[in-house]
């Protein structure tokens, strides 16, 4: 926001340039900045130059500054964080480019509307943005937009002041909007708003814009009578006014008048004159004036010159533009201004001039990879510039090497804007230029029509493709055409009918793939049966695999597979059906996840058997691949079923490819006999034997020719042994290899396999040695290697081998083979969880956290602990988590664990902990988990329980829920979500709506909303069908919306009136609405009305009950009216309904009972809320204090005192003594002047201090005495009990609590006088300053500051900020540099530093 609101003087500092006198005219950014097309010279040239301009000017400056400051001191706080980002973007946009894209403004506006009551500065920002900051929007549209914003925000409760009216005026001026000035003033008067100088000034400008000098004079006369200063800006307006009235002579005369009035014409004056000449097309005078300015000490910037250019162009004299262009200095910093002018010219349909300026822009043309002019082309497309012009511009841009591919860029703009005709014409132009036209160029066009299911549009695009000689490919049909039709059949028919099915085969295959992906295997089968055109399995394999996985019909699986295998049309070409279909099977298994295969195990078995019966064969190699997959999925039982398919007949023929092992063996024999080297052949033999998986033989061969073994042979052999789970030989071979060459390195996978097999066979030390070797030899560790480590550890964990897991994990991590991570440490916990050894599991997790700062599987541990009811361990885990990761994380962990284990009530309690707020990543994690494991109920509960969670992104929560429903195809539940969201008043994001629409469509349901538009149209929200059906008539959603809005705006009367009106018409709202209304009425003390509403709701809605909030407010109101019995009943009802009443309500009730001396009922309340204290947020002290107070009230002082003493001194204390806060009791006793009680309490407190060393009560009492103004009594107490002065922490807490509270400064001061040691404590003097500041006590604040400085104590920034603010508000100077940031910043800083140090 800053740049939008910031007074120009701030910007000046940043923009200070070498020419200080002029610098202000060059500032970047800000709405007040002089803009290229600013019609309001008043906004130009804020301060600075004033020094040169005489006293009148100075006054102007002061006044203007004040005006701006008034407008900028609005609190930013009301802008809630939700749309902060949007405002930031507006701000950034203005700063960077000096303009705002319309879409961005619209977005911020929508956000503002949907978030309810907009702040007034917010409204101001939006209004201000509707003028020249929108060069891309037509002038009329801008004003329309401003009016829309004005009305809508007013409706939403924005309060307008003079700044808003002035902003609106400025927008009018910038947009050359014609309006009635008198009406405007009347409107202001009606709203009881006084126009100020700025208003008048702008009204004069508006008259002048129309050439109405008479009107301007009237206002001018009025200003004079009011003694308002006439500024340069006014004169500048008058120049324009006279000129527009056709009176150039008088326009020129204004300069003389100005001089007579003691105001020297500045550059803005000359600019006004220049613009006036330009509008007349008077190039001679323009040139003369320019020369005159050049000769003077004045200086016109490029920005000014650009404005003259605009005047010429707009008035229809483009021929003079080049004359002015020559005079531009063409400095780079003016490029944003030039860009804005170009955009404006295009908006005004003056594209040719725009191009002229663009071509004059000083951009480097050497680097051909940096294109310039995109903004121009894009905007031309938006403004529907004719294609002939566009292609011409593109040509020119390319010629001057400003843009390397302007046509392509323009085309992309046309596509994005979905301008089909323009796109086609551009493509034709491109084709003529010799550029290729590619199929995907048409996709964005198709997408546009597809979203609207616009068949006609699709057909037109397809025809366009034909015209350009482009053929749609399968992707085009599949992704963009077919989804638009109800079915592939109707798609084909309609396309054929319209003659745009140029390639029927492509379409057929696309259709096949579309249906296959949907799982429609019937279609696939019938297509394959009837198909006559060539089709390669490879091209449809992916879709077919998906289809198989989506369909459950194994018969169809088999039939399709058989067809592919046997039919002469498919897969008969080399390499033949065995290979092709085998590979397909491999891919099928491969594409499934482990859990999927496990779930479908029986189906797969059936499938394999059916294939077997069909006499279908797969190659052995493929089988091996499948076997490995099944093995890794932990479904080895399926392996034998897959094995049936192996093609044994061809086994022999395949072997002939390689040399057979027996042949190799005999070769070796011969070579050996001839004493020839056999190493190569031996290696070959070993490799062949390995590939035949013949371990026995391979080992024998190795033993026989050991001396001739090479490294590669050993490596293969080791791997073979590992595969065959032969740890013994693998290890021996490894040792032999080391002897052969100790530096030999085998590849990573073989090392890992070795570690795995050794670990599995208990050769732990050997496994660790291998790991060490990996480290020493610097073996490449890949992601997959780390993954393998995890699997090794996890395998061991599942086998329950604690020692193995521990030692291997330690070795891997300490050797640095894998970084400590939750993944790699996961098995450490698993091993104990598998054994159900929960204490050890927790211990290990905690240990990991201490060692590596990670906490593996804490969620699973907690779930198990909860299932087993291990309260102590849960406590331990919680303590640890909250200590390590904070209380919030702990609460979330616990919340998720309760949810997971189905303990929803407990989960509810946790998530309702006061102060807990949404942690999006944690919530999302749990959502994703639920979705992955299809836990519908758990996720539903999560969504339900987080309804009131602070800052919870409800839309995101529902989105996750919908995702799960989508997986399950449950449209009924999705539909219920839709209603639920409306009830909760959530604005769904587009993606949510789209997902919802998809689910409904998949379930063949009508979609009850327009997908893209819905969310900002209020009326459409009325689709609320969730209203209570027992009502006499369905609630009119309009009523409901109105009443909810009134409730939101806290308009109790309005809301009640709507209720009455609805009641008369017998309209019933839903229960939520009544609760909201009740809450509002009760909070405003409208008790009778509230009872009326309650009665009505109870009689019209079956089982209507008040919710937590409404009940709480009811209790508070009842207590205030002294209906204690009724209040007790309300509390009981609320608690019976499992509600959690507000702490305030319960406390108020207890306090009221205490004042009545009603011990019995306090105890009754205590019993009622037993167990809920923490959820409500009630401390034990509320009961202790109030019971004691009640007893004292009943004159049972001794009983009360005895009870308190017992509590504090007994062995099994309810609370630690330092938490026993008796402030309330003491204060009440003092307030009520219960003298005997005061004395006895004093004695008790001293006794507790002297005999039991419990100092809290006596300190509290001391502080209460001071607070009650009994300083002498306090001093006496302090003298009797000196230890009070040492209770620093209690005393400082008292300071912090009371700081800033009105009227407490004197109390704090008294305490300091009694205990001067505290003076040096930071908390004490900070609190004191805060109190002085809030009481505006400058003298005391000064004294405090001086005392600190004298003692050489340096107060922190917050202290200084407060002090500075206090001084300034008292009109005094600040004797030190004021900390620059705002209060929140320093408060946050202190908070953070505290958190960091704790």
């Amino acid at each position: 926001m800053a740049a939008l609101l910031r007074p120009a003087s701030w910007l000046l500092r940043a923009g200070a340039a070498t020419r200080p006198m002029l610098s202000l005219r060059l500032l970047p950014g800000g709405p007040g900045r002089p803009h290229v097309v600013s019609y309001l010279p008043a906004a130009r040239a804020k301060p600075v130059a004033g020094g040169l301009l005489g006293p009148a000017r100075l006054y102007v400056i002061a006044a203007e500054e004040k005006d701006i400051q008034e407008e900028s001191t609005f609190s930013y706080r009301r802008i809630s964080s939700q749309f902060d980002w949007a405002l930031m973007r507006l701000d950034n946009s203005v700063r960077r480019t000096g303009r705002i894209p319309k879409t961005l403004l619209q977005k911020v506006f929508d956000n503002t509307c949907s978030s309810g009551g907009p702040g007034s500065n917010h409204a101001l920002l939006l209004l201000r943005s509707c003028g020249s900051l929108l060069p891309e929007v037509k002038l009329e549209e801008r004003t329309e937009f401003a009016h829309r914003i004005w009305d809508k925000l007013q409706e939403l409760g924005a309060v307008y002041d003079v700044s808003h009216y002035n902003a609106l005026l400025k927008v009018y001026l910038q947009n050359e909007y014609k309006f009635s000035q008198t009406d405007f003033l009347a409107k202001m008067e009606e709203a009881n708003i006084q126009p100020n100088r700025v208003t008048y000034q702008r009204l004069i400008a508006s008259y002048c814009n129309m050439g109405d000098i008479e009107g301007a004079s009237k206002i001018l006369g009025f200003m004079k009578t009011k003694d308002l200063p006439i500024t340069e800006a006014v004169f500048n307006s008058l120049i324009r006014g006279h000129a527009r009235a056709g009176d150039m002579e008088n326009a020129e005369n204004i300069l003389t008048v100005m001089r007579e009035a003691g105001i020297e014409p500045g550059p803005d004056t000359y600019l006004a004159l220049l613009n006036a000449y330009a509008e007349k097309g008077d190039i001679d005078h323009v040139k003369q004036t320019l020369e005159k300015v050049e000769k003077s000490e004045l200086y016109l910037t490029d920005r000014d010159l650009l404005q003259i250019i605009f005047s010429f162009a707009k008035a229809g004299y483009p021929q003079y533009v080049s004359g002015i262009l020559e005079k531009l200095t063409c400095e780079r910093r003016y490029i944003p201004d030039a860009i804005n002018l170009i955009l404006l010219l295009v908006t005004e349909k003056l594209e040719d001039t725009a191009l002229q300026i663009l071509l004059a822009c000083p951009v480097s043309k050497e680097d051909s990879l940096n294109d310039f002019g995109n903004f121009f082309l894009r905007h031309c497309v938006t403004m529907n510039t004719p294609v002939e012009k566009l292609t011409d511009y593109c040509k020119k841009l390319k010629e001057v090497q400003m843009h390397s591919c302007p046509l392509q860029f323009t085309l992309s703009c046309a596509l994005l804007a979905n301008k089909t005709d323009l796109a086609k014409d551009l493509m034709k132009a491109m084709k003529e230029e010799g550029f290729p036209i590619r199929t995907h160029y048409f996709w964005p066009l198709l997408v546009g029509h597809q979203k609207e299911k616009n068949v006609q549009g699709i057909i037109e695009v397809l025809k366009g493709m034909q015209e350009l000689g482009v053929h749609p490919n399968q992707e085009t049909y599949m992704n963009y055409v077919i989804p638009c039709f109800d079915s592939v059949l109707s798609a084909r028919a309609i396309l054929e009918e319209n003659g745009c099915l140029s390639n029927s085969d492509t379409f057929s295959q696309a259709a096949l793939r579309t249906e296959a992906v949907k799982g429609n295997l019937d279609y696939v089968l019938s297509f394959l049966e009837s198909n006559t055109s060539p089709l390669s399995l490879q091209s449809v394999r992916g879709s077919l695999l998906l289809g198989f996985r989506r369909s459950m019909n194994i018969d169809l699986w088999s039939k399709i597979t058989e067809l592919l295998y046997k039919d002469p049309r498919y897969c008969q070409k080399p390499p033949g059906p065995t290979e092709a279909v085998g590979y397909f099977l491999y891919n099928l298994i491969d594409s499934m996840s482990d859990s999927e295969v496990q779930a479908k195990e029986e189906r797969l078995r059936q499938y394999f058997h059916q294939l077997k019966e069909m006499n279908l064969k797969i190659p052995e190699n493929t089988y091996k691949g499948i076997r490995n997959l099944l093995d890794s999925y932990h479904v080895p039982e399926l392996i034998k079923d897959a094995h049936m398919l192996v093609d044994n007949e061809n086994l022999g023929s395949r072997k002939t490819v390689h040399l057979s092992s027996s042949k190799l063996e005999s070769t070796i024999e011969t070579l050996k006999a001839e004493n020839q080297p056999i190493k190569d052949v031996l290696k070959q033999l070993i490799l062949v034997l390995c590939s035949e998986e013949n371990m026995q033989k391979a080992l024998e061969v190795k033993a026989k020719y050991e001396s001739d073994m090479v490294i590669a042979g050993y490596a293969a052999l080791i791997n073979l042994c590992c595969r065959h789970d032969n740890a013994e030989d693998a290890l021996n071979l490894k040792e032999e290899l080391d002897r052969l060459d100790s530096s030999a390195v085998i590849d990573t996978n073989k090392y890992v396999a070795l570690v795995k097999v050794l670990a599995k066979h208990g050769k732990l030390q050997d496994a660790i040695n291998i790991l060490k070797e990996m480290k020493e030899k610097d073996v490449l560790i890949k992601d997959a290697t780390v993954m393998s480590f995890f699997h090794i550890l996890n395998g061991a964990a599942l086998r329950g081998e604690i020692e193995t897991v521990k030692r291997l994990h330690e070795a891997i991590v300490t050797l640095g083979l894998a970084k400590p991570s939750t993944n790699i440490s996961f098995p450490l916990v698993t091993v104990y969880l598998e054994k159900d050894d929960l204490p050890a599991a927790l211990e290990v997790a905690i240990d990991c956290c201490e060692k590596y700062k990670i906490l593996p599987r804490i969620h699973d541990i907690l779930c198990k602990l909860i299932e087993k009811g291990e309260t102590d361990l849960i406590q331990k885990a919680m303590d640890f988590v909250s200590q390590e990761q904070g209380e919030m994380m702990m609460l979330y962990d616990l919340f998720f664990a309760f949810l997971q284990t189905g303990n929803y009530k407990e989960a509810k309690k946790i998530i309702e902990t006061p102060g807990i707020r949404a942690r999006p990543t944690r919530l999302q994690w749990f959502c994703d988990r639920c979705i992955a494991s299809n836990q519908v109920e758990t996720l539903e509960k999560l969504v339900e329980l987080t309804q009131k969670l602070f800052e919870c992104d409800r839309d995101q929560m529902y989105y996750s829920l919908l995702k799960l429903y989508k997986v399950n195809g449950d449209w009924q539940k999705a539909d219920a979500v839709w209603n639920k969201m409306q009830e909760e008043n959530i604005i769904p994001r587009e993606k949510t709506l789209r997902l919802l629409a998809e689910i409904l469509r998949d379930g063949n349901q009508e979609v009850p909303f327009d997908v893209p538009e819905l969310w900002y149209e209020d009326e459409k929200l009325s689709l609320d069908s969730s209203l209570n059906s027992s009502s006499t008539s369905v609630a009119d959603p309009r009523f409901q919306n109105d009443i909810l809005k009134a409730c939101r705006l806290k308009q109790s009367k309005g809301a009640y009136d709507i209720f009455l009106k609805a009641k008369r018409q017998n309209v019933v709202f839903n229960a939520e609405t009544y609760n909201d209304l009740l809450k509002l009425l009760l909070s405003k003390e409208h008790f009778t009305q509230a009872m009326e509403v309650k009665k009505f709701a109870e009689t019209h809605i079956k089982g209507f009950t008040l919710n937590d909030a409404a009940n709480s407010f009811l209790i508070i109101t009842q207590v205030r009216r002294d209906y204690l019995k009724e209040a007790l009943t309300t509390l009981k009802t609320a608690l019976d309904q499992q509600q959690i009443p507000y702490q305030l309500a319960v406390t108020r009730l207890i306090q009221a009972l205490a004042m009545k001396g009603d011990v019995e009922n306090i105890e009754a309340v205590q019993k009622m809320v037993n167990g809920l204290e923490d959820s409500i947020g009630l401390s034990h002290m509320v009961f202790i204090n109030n019971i004691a107070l009640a007893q004292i009230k009943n004159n049972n002082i001794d009983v009360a005192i005895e009870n308190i003493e017992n509590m504090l001194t007994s062995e099994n204390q309810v609370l630690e003594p330092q938490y026993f806060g008796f402030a309330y009791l003491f204060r009440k006793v003092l307030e009520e002047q219960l003298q005997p009680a005061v004395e006895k309490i004093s004695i008790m407190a001293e006794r507790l201090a002297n005999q039991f060393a419990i100092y809290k009560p006596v300190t509290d009492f001391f502080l209460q005495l001071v607070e009650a103004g009994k300083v002498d009594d306090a001093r006496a107490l302090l003298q009797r009990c000196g230890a009070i002065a040492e209770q620093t922490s209690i005393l400082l807490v008292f300071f912090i609590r009371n700081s800033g509270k009105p009227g407490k400064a004197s109390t704090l001061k008294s305490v300091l006088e009694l205990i001067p040691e505290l003076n040096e404590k930071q908390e004490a003097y900070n609190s004191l300053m805060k109190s002085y500041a809030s009481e505006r006590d400058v003298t005391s604040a000064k004294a405090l500051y001086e005392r600190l400085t004298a003692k050489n104590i340096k107060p922190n920034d917050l202290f200084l900020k407060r002090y500075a603010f206090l001084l300034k508000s008292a009109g005094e100077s600040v004797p030190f540099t004021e900390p620059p940031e705002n209060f929140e910043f320093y408060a946050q800083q202190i908070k953070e530093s505290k958190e960091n140090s704790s």
Partner: protein
Amino acid sequence: MAALTATGAVALRRNVSRPVAFVRKIPWTAASSQLREHFAQFGHIKRCIVPFDKETGFHRGMGWVQFSSEEELQNALQQENHIIDGVKESLFRDAERTPKGKRPPQANGRKAAQSHPARFTQPK
């Protein structure tokens, strides 16, 4: 041949660092076939993917090219400028650059085997 492919696939699965280049800043005018055409000069392209956004009909300016060998990939990576349709591309070795789970659909479409622990890891 298919048998060889099958074993090859198994091997590939184990070998995560496949020779894949990650290409950024692809101009909108180019699709996978243009990418393929361009990179064919460095070696045999096994697979080339430029995913399109079905919401807009445009791609997101990035893609993946899988070569048949590491050497070919290195050839491509060592060339200083890659210009497709007049636009300079940015080329990376894929392995480290793409975050886990956002891998392009692989030649054999595999996820990490077995129970992927990442799925059960809580984000901090």
